[in-house]
């Protein structure tokens, strides 16, 4: 009765219901807020260092490539505009989300999967504690909060990287660099557009991770599959949603 080709549809349905279940469990309680903040720190701190390092080098390489390309048209002083726009609109949110998936997403999936394998999720259910509310929701919300912050730190480090390369190494004028950013990069479209994207990506990655953790088979191999799936599926989803958001909102 359950056809094989219908299985992906059913899986999508289960993931959707799981999301609704999480959203329905949101309450304005101090306990939930506290646990969300704790998780925001855990997933945020896990990714902070790697994201800052990557951000710095992405900024440097962007500046390098941009200066090389722009110098041909005698427009090397436009470098900050190009770096700023491409960072805020695309590279910042997308690369941060991908790094977050690899660092924090896998940790979330493995943690929940292991809790399932050792019966802790079961134990919660049997204590009349909703594990979706207690385990999945705080991690989901933490992703929603911390990914925009991580994106901001990524972009800040990338701007610094571009400053170091363009001004420090290539000797471009610092005043021109900043004034191009401050007149050319639009706060509404470029900056906030990227922030909204990163909120969406944060929820997407942490939600995917929680879902794979919860649907993991309760074995070692099951947990391993869950972490792999988290990285693969959330990375693909981030890029797909990025395309959809970019084409609809610009």
């Amino acid at each position: 009765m359950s056809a094989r080709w219908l299985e992906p549809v059913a899986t999508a349905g289960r993931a959707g219901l799981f999301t609704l279940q999480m959203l329905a469990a949101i309450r304005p309680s101090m306990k939930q807020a506290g646990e969300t903040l704790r998780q925001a720190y855990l997933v945020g701190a896990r990714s902070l260092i790697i994201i800052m390092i990557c951000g710095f080098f992405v900024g440097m390489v962007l500046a390098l490539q941009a200066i090389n390309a722009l110098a041909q048209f005698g427009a090397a002083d436009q470098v900050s505009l190009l770096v700023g726009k491409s960072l805020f609109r695309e590279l910042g949110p997308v690369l941060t989300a991908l790094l977050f998936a690899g660092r924090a997403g896998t940790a979330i999936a493995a943690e929940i999967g292991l809790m399932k394998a050792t019966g802790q999720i079961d134990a919660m259910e049997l204590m009349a504690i909703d594990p979706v509310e207690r385990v999945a929701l705080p991690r989901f919300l933490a992703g929603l909060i911390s990914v925009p912050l991580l994106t901001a730190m990524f972009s800040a480090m990338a701007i610094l990287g571009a400053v170091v390369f363009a001004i420090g190494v290539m000797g471009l004028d610092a005043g021109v660099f900043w004034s191009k950013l401050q007149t050319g990069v639009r706060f509404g479209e470029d900056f906030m557009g990227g922030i909204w994207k990163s909120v969406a990506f944060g929820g997407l990655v942490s939600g995917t991770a929680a879902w794979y953790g919860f649907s993991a088979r309760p074995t070692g191999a099951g947990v391993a599959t869950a972490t792999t799936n988290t990285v693969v599926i959330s990375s693909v989803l981030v890029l797909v949603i990025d395309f959809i958001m970019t084409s609809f909102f610009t």
Partner: protein
Amino acid sequence: MRANYKVELAAGVFLLLGLGALLWLATQATDYGREVGREAYTVSARFTNVGDLRERAPVKIAGVPVGLVDEIEVDPVTFEAVVRLRIDQRFNDVPNDTSASILTSGVLGDRYVGLEPGGSPDALVDGDELLLTQSAVVLEQLISKFLFNAGGDKEEP
């Protein structure tokens, strides 16, 4: 409880760091606070040709940006281009006989609208129309005019 406090403290540091980065980027690396925001008034100007002037192009007085192009439409009756300009409220004392021209920054740069203030004692207010305008110089027209004139000059003597 001690360990818990440590985590809370670290969570606070992380959040502050993130918010700090957000704020720094917004104020230092975007046009936040510098864009022509809500504090602006709109005037319109008619041109026979706007060239490749685009929406959001800058409006300048004496070469300094004071606003931006909000909207470009074609009047369905006169077939002129109607360009609406948003000008920052700080520049609320621009004379109402100011003229507008569509200019190019550099030889092949972007188009912008340049305002040349007149001498009228009355200031422009929201909804006014600039009556003195000068359309964009289109390179092809310029070249063909030049070639035509040059050819004519040769035949005459």
